[in-house]
């Protein structure tokens, strides 16, 4: 095996090489990289690898079946943190706007029945103080009402879970995080919390298979693959 070429100074990162190849870099940075590539055989070789590989066929991409209309299926809508990519302040404003009154935001729905464990899926239910789960179509709360959260997840899954509530004030964490939940059907997360006030709330459960979810990252809304399920609640009229 031949020894790898060494860069003449600081290597151009693969991301920058890809963006250079795609013509996405601005003039100044593009010029700096072009100058470096002219004198660095190692980085020039990496760019050639990109160019040579670019013709490789992509795997086919199929559009998933359209989602059923709200209420036709008892399942919590999966939302990604990417939706909350802006800073928390902007997030709070956006969340308040979206939770407002029937905008185009995909509303979280709540499983009123017994969803069971389905193919690696995770679902979340909010349960009122009287033991009645929040049902789809009646996702409202009274000022000061208490809730518990139950999670249905595959028994083979081991993850840390946390509850986060988003509203116009930002993100808050009403319960202690669960570092390792014994998954199953409708497993309760420890503790209960109250929702107060008269504005919409989004209650989300986040989890991380490596342990308790990193709250700082959740607050920052960093886009990533971390899973999250949410339920939207409106104040009772």
């Amino acid at each position, binding site marked *: 095996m031949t020894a790898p*070429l060494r860069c003449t100074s600081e290597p151009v990162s693969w991301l920058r090489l890809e963006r250079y190849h795609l013509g996405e870099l601005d003039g100044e940075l593009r010029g700096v990289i072009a100058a470096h590539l002219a004198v660095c055989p190692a980085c020039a070789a990496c760019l050639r690898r990109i160019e040579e590989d670019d013709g490789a066929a992509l795997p086919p991409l199929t559009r998933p079946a359209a989602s059923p209309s709200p209420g036709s299926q008892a399942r919590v809508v999966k939302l990604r943190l990417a939706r909350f*990519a802006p800073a928390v302040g902007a997030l709070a404003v956006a969340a308040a706007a979206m939770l407002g009154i029937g905008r185009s935001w995909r509303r979280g729905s709540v499983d009123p029945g017994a969803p069971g464990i389905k193919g690696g899926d995770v679902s979340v239910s909010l349960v009122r103080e009287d033991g009645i789960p929040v049902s789809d179509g009646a996702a409202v709360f009274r000022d000061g009402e208490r809730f518990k959260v139950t999670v249905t997840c595959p028994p083979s899954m081991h993850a840390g879970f946390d509850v986060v509530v988003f509203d116009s004030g930002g993100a808050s964490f009403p319960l202690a995080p669960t570092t390792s939940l014994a998954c199953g059907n409708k497993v309760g997360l420890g503790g209960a919390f109250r929702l107060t006030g008269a504005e919409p709330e989004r209650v989300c459960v986040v989890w991380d298979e490596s342990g308790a979810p990193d709250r700082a990252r959740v607050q*920052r809304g960093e886009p*990533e693959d971390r899973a999250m399920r949410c339920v939207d609640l409106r104040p009772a009229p």
Partner: protein
Amino acid sequence: MEAYRRYGPALIRKASRMLGNPEDARDIVQALFTDLFQDEHAILDLPYLYRAVTNRCLTFMRDEKNRARLLAENAEDALAPPARTLSDERAVSTDLVVKLVRELDDGHCEVLAYRFLDDMTQDEIAELLGLSRKTIGKRLDRIREAVAALMAPAAGAPS
């Protein structure tokens, strides 16, 4: 999907560097874009997608079955990317990354991938993650400690 055609090859190359094989890389990128079909608000620029693929690869590495297979496949480092850097810093190959994902949290693992597999500078990582250079530096210090701890037993082992 235009973004898939435009960025798919770059993302598969990126995932291949992390996982050491193009088959898993294609699966991960394909799954990412299938999910993005359902999110009409998704941001589809390359830096964002790069992060998404990075995190999916890390999640993939944490799975027990995948982990065992990746360690076996990359045991001899045959597919390790060439180290371009002039520095004396230890090269971190795929098998080492697979081991380190158990030792480090998400934030550190992401920095690990960008610095050692993607050859990003601290400034570039800081910009991509929206964090300070100082924070990235601290995370790199922790990563180097973890690498050293993992390599320490091997150093004393018979060759």
